[in-house]
């Protein structure tokens, strides 16, 4: 379609350059810069020149290993047991600190362990906190993506009926989306509070006082779940609207046809609605996944990664190191790992949802 009328290199570049230039300067270059920085020992402010250190940042972040520890035995070769009959194991630090027999474990710390017969299998990593942040982020993505996407679809179906005043409900469901996640996080700190928290009181009321209050953000078992719940509450309206716009592209004649054929509600959904939502589903899934991987503000405001690193995330670690400790190279390495994760999950999702 290259007509002479519309061909102009000067005007073309002139119009595109400001926007394109800013994207190159502030997105594309920093993106590649991250790969470069992750291979150095760059700090935000440092008197020493920057040195190239190869993959050692990644090495430190990702080193992980399984250590098999046999129970301690006494002189007779019998397993030493405590009063409760539990086998006693040598401490992990005897392997990881100054032990010339096990140079591969030097500097590592215990993450978790399980037992294989009498042998204790101990997972040790150089950077246990980073591994926890990987685990927490993946858990967050794996729970939030399907739950939020599914709930959003339910809400969209609910809102997509012809009822008087339905726009009012749509507006209410969408409302938390416009409220900053920082505001929401601070507000929910109060709702989740262990003493006077609203949630404890509401649950106590609904269960006629049977429910005993708990400190939702203060205990390892519930903190991440509490953040997940709040995040879904805040963002589900966004995806409801995207589903809704997908629903409205489905031709009404298809619904008429299925109602003439006497299809049940479930059959109509299964054979008319869902196939029509295919592209929307892919979009919703990818958008939620990308947003979920970027989890930061909630953690920063509500728990600062605690208790016991049970809510720390990849981005939180990147910021904590890159900005907090001014370790730009370490933060950049974490950023690169995050990007590789986001990219590979998106590609897997594309592959699984491809047109067949």
């Amino acid at each position, binding site marked *: 379609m290259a007509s002479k009328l519309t061909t102009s290199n000067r005007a073309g570049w002139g119009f595109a350059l*400001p926007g394109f230039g800013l994207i190159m*300067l502030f997105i594309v270059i920093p993106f590649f810069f991250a790969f470069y920085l992750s291979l150095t020992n760059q700090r935000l402010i440092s008197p020493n020149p920057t040195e190239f250190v190869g993959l050692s940042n990644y090495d430190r972040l990702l080193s992980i290993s399984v250590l098999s520890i046999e129970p301690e035995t006494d002189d007779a070769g019998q397993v030493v047991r405590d009063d409760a009959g539990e086998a006693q194991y040598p401490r992990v630090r005897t392997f990881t600190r100054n032990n010339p027999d096990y140079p591969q474990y030097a500097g590592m710390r215990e993450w978790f362990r399980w037992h294989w017969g009498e042998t204790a299998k101990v997972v040790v990593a150089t950077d246990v906190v980073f591994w926890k942040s990987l685990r927490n982020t993946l858990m967050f993505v794996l729970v939030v993506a399907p739950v939020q996407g599914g709930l959003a679809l339910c809400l969209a179906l609910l809102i997509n009926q012809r009822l008087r005043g339905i726009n009012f409900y749509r507006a209410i469901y969408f409302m938390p989306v416009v409220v900053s996640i920082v505001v929401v996080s601070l507000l929910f700190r109060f709702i989740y509070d262990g003493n006077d928290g609203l949630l404890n009181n509401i649950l106590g009321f609904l269960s006629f006082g049977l429910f005993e209050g708990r400190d939702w953000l203060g205990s390892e078992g519930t903190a991440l779940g509490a953040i997940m719940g709040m995040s879904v509450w805040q963002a589900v309206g966004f995806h409801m609207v*995207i589903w809704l716009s997908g629903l409205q592209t489905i031709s009404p004649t298809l619904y008429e046809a299925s109602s003439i054929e006497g299809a049940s509600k479930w059959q109509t959904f299964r054979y008319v609605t869902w196939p029509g939502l295919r592209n929307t589903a892919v979009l919703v899934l990818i958008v939620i996944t990308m947003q979920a991987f970027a989890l930061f503000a909630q953690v920063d405001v509500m728990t600062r990664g605690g208790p016991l690193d049970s809510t720390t995330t990849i981005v939180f670690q990147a910021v904590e190191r890159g900005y907090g400790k001014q370790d730009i190279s370490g933060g950049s390495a974490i950023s690169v790992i995050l990007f590789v994760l986001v990219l590979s999950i998106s590609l897997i999702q594309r592959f699984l949802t491809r047109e067949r």
Partner: protein
Amino acid sequence: MATINADNRGLRLAVRYLVLTLIAIIFVFPLVFMVMSSLKPDLQLLRDTSSIRAFLPVGDISFDNYASAFERVPVMKFMFNSLVVTGTTVIMSLLLCSLAAFSFVFLNWSGRNVALSIIIATLIIPFETIAIPLLLFVSKLPWIGMEGMTFGWLDTYRVQIIPLIADGLTIFLFVQYFRDLPRELIEASRVEGASWWQIYTRVVMPLSGPVLATAAILKFLAMYNQYLWPLMVVQQETYRPVMVGLQYFFQLNTAWGEIMAYLTIITIPVLAFYLVLQRAFIASIASTGVKG
């Protein structure tokens, strides 16, 4: 038979509204709680959480919390900073992104397809993955101002504005919209001798109301609610926006009334804006999903 059916229908309708309303309560109760609590003294606020009074403006109602929040934190300054940063970014973004999209859709130039592909590719780069290298980058950038050439953009308005003006999504939205405009219109104007700038300002922009609204709303929400970036690049109060200003309250676990007052102050403008332009807000989110 007929009456039973009618009753049935009425009942089903009532159930539908009941379900819709219960869900609405879930979405709205934290915000109602926030506003109501901001009007109460701390002791009463804590006592009220154990009953329905938490959601009602009852008891000792006053604006005292607002007064003390204003005393503790320079709220107006933060608000002003947020408006400067958000306003400038939104306007510059609309201008530069629409210009770029205009060029991508209506002009032929060498390098066009490559440039557009690069922009589309940036859509899969979450901002969080470039924030750290970008921090180092802006801390070294030069600037020519009143005092001559200086290095480092930290603690300024520009560091909160310039890096965030252009983004792939905004350009993408304009490109999609422009592609649906009739090309004959542009070519006819060319034949009549209109310059590209004239075509942009007099032909294309007047037709672009909906996409401008969409892009403005999305950018406004993203910028006003910005947290990670200003957290890292702004240390001084002088340039701090409202969301980072919240940090003043992080350590004050006792002053809940004040916290609620501050949260209400910074949330009400957005909520009011949303409630007035509700349809446009929802349409703008919906339009990001139509073609995907």
